[in-house]
């Protein structure tokens, strides 16, 4: 019994608990309390296992190699299916299990309106299990199976509310392009197996870099790269995300945007940093940074033009993924740690924002920005939590978005100075401008949903049930903590993960035994950089917050004591002319400035760009499938030429 609780088993526990939970809910799902208990318990246990692994894997730098059925590699060939957990996969595992746990708590009360809830929770746990499996598995075919599971679970969940307009169509689009991505991954895995005769990830990373000159390996790399980018909804595939989020229930949008995109990014990191180790090439870094910048800027401008709250959030999650990709593509120590730090922050504040959108949908029944308004008076807690999320995503200092975005700018600019190529300065400028446009779109959302005038039909809207607020509160607290203590997050999470990312040999040796990597990889030792981390720049948020509070105190004291006369005319509730709004004399009728009538100056200047974008995103499946094929062919062309 004691070795059952030994931490070596925790990776398999966290994955199997979720699948077991899914199965149990199918069996006992009818009873409401039991179903919720199983779901929350499963998510909780998987999170607990991940947290328990922090000490051994993150701090001591140990890599857990877990062979299923104890079939250790024989004669230099790894036969059995392995699970490998190094700091990088544990980091993503932690990120995913937190999002899954909070979303599970949220959906307990959020789905109360819907029917056939047992199916919802089974699919929910299948999706969670799939993603955990993908992140922790050490076998490339096992990763493919997990990708299949999570894609189908996500498609089914997008179409869960099939009465919602566009849900079925969005799910179908997601299904088609998702399956194109999965088949690309499968084809890539098959070509790798043909060349390296093994499916174990570590052994592959030992063998494949040596065979990079072989054309079929290049094609395999292109296929895998495109396959995983469909999962991460990078630029050519981003309209899927917008439709999927628009229709899916909010707790599922949290998973899709917070978790699925991160699994795509994880896949790309594994490919480029470990399997094919092509990051050393300048042109390859340029490819990742270019894709990151394009998806960053394109999606934030598209978000500004949206009319629907959840579609806007969907476009934002892809633009934040663009940030992560740019940072990861820099191939510098601080760049990588900034990138995955931003991935963590993105899961937290994007989850919070989607839950807020869900709360608005749960109460008012619509997320159309042009119809909503003034909800802050009726839903004060949701407004405060939304504002925390909005400030975090737009990078306002005390919150976590700022810490990671600021590290990304540092990394970009240092890369520009170190590589002497002015292109990276342009990247920094694009990052900063995108951050301001993100702020603009969240000002638009807060004005058209939470502030401004409350329409009559939402008079009797009341606060969301406590469970949903608790979930949002969890995300908000995490947002503030990761924002205030970047150095702690660095020490425990991002720096070990970054060192693991640059240390491919450690990864291989852990699985295949000592010295294997140096023998196989001898000539191709990519420069495991001396991963040095310095506190990027001069900024300690805690002392800044302290000073802000002192000054805030001073200002409020001055504002309050100067009470020469009692503030007698505060609104006493009943509407009289004195407290009505100033309408240049007219009766103060209902008129809300929100939704699409904001930022005319910006939209007018960019009207040609916006009209071109409007035509591009036609919403027809054939176009998206065409883009996917074009992207695949371009990727193949690029790999063949460059590598």
């Amino acid at each position, binding site marked *: 019994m004691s070795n059952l609780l030994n931490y070596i088993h925790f990776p398999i526990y966290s994955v199997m608990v979720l699948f077991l939970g899914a199965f149990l809910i199918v069996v006992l799902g009818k009873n409401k309390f039991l179903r919720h208990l199983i779901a929350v318990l499963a998510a909780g246990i998987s999170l607990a296992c991940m947290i328990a692994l922090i000490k051994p894997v993150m701090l001591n730098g140990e890599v857990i190699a877990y062979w299923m059925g104890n079939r250790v590699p024989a004669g230099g060939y790894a036969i059995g299916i392995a699970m490998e957990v190094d700091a990088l996969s544990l980091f993503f595992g932690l990120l995913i299990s937190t999002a899954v746990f909070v979303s599970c708590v949220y959906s307990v009360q959020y789905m109360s309106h819907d029917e056939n809830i047992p199916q919802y929770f089974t699919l929910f746990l299948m999706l969670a299990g799939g993603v955990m499996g993908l992140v922790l598995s050490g076998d490339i075919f096992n990763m493919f199976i997990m990708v299949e599971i999570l894609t189908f679970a996500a498609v089914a969940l997008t179409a869960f509310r099939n009465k919602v307009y566009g849900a079925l169509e969005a799910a179908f689009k997601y299904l088609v392009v998702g399956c194109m991505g999965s088949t690309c991954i499968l084809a890539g895995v098959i070509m790798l197996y043909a060349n390296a005769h093994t499916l174990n990830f570590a052994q592959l990373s030992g063998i494949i870099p040596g065979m990079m000159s072989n054309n079929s390996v290049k094609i395999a790399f292109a296929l895998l790269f495109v396959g995983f980018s469909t999962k991460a909804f990078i630029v050519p595939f981003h309209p899927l995300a917008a439709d999927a989020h628009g229709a899916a229930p909010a707790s599922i949008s949290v998973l899709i945007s917070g978790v699925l995109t991160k699994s795509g990014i994880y896949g790309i990191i594994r490919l480029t940093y470990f399997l094919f180790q092509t990051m050393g090439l300048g042109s390859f870094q340029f490819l990742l940074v270019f894709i990151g910048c394009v998806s960053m800027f394109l999606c934030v401008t598209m978000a500004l033009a949206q009319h629907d709250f959840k579609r806007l959030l969907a476009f934002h999650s892809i633009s934040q993924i663009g940030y992560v990709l740019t940072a990861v593509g820099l191939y510098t120590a601080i760049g990588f740690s900034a990138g995955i730090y931003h991935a963590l922050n993105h899961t937290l504040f994007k989850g919070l924002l989607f839950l807020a959108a869900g709360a608005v949908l749960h109460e008012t029944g619509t997320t159309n920005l042009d119809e909503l308004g003034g909800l802050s008076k009726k839903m004060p807690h949701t407004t405060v939590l939304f504002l925390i999320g909005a400030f975090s995503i737009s990078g306002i200092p005390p919150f976590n978005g700022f810490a990671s975005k600021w590290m990304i700018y540092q990394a970009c600019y240092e890369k520009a100075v170190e590589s002497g190529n002015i292109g990276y300065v342009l990247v920094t400028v694009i990052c900063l401008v995108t951050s301001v446009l993100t702020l603009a779109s969240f000002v638009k959302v807060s004005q058209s949903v939470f502030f401004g005038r409350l329409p009559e039909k939402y008079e009797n809207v009341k606060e969301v049930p406590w469970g949903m607020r608790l979930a949002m509160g969890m995300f908000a607290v995490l947002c503030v903590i990761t924002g205030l203590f970047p150095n702690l997050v660095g020490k425990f999470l991002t720096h070990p993960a970054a060192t693991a990312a640059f240390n491919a040999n450690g990864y291989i040796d852990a699985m295949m035994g000592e010295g294997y990597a140096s023998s196989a990889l001898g000539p191709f030792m990519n420069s495991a950089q001396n991963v040095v981390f310095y506190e990027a720049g001069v900024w300690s948020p805690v002392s800044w917050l302290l000073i802000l509070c002192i000054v805030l105190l001073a200002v409020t004291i001055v504002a309050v*004591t*100067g009470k*020469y*006369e009692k503030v007698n005319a505060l609104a006493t509730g009943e509407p009289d*002319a004195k407290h*009505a709004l*100033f309408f240049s*004399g*007219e009766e103060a009728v209902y008129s809300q400035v929100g939704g699409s009538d904001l930022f005319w100056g910006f939209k007018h200047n960019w009207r040609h760009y916006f009209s071109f974008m409007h035509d591009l995103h036609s919403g027809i499946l054939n176009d998206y499938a065409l883009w996917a094929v074009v992207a695949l062919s371009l990727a193949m062309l690029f790999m063949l030429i460059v590598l």
Partner: protein
Amino acid sequence: MFKKTIIESTGKSPWLFHINAGSCNGCDIEIVSVLTPRYDAERVGFKLVGSPRHADIAVVSGPVTKQSLPRVLRTLEQIPEPRCIVTCGSCPQSGNVFRDSYSVCGPLSKYVHVDVDIAGCTPKPEAIMDGLLLAAQILAEKKKTGNQEATLPNPYAPEKTAEEAKPAEEKTEEKGEA
């Protein structure tokens, strides 16, 4: 704690808000001309503001027409205390040539306590300046005494020379004091 400075500065930075209650725009351009370089009301702190919430002195011009009456009263209501209401030109005081028209609702003083009247069919900018300065002093007076109906003796009241004006004078005097 800054009671004295607050009272002083209430008199020194009166912000104007102009309400056109159907005026022929003669007085409107005169009011704005007070802010031009020649007369420059800004040197004593006057500023034209766009919203009644920021205003201290409401300058009303034009015979209060039936259409504009509710709007004028609502806007005057929305100005925070302590406020002054100044009528510019003789239209708001009596309706001038438009007095008996069916669409004019008579002098503004029927509806609201008017602090200062500036007579003249387009009063001279200097006259408007006098009126506004007096209104600024009344503003400070209101802030000091706290009662919104406070008023000051009018330095420009005509000194009655004829003897029957004398009783009128005393009468106005002690009424002023009361």
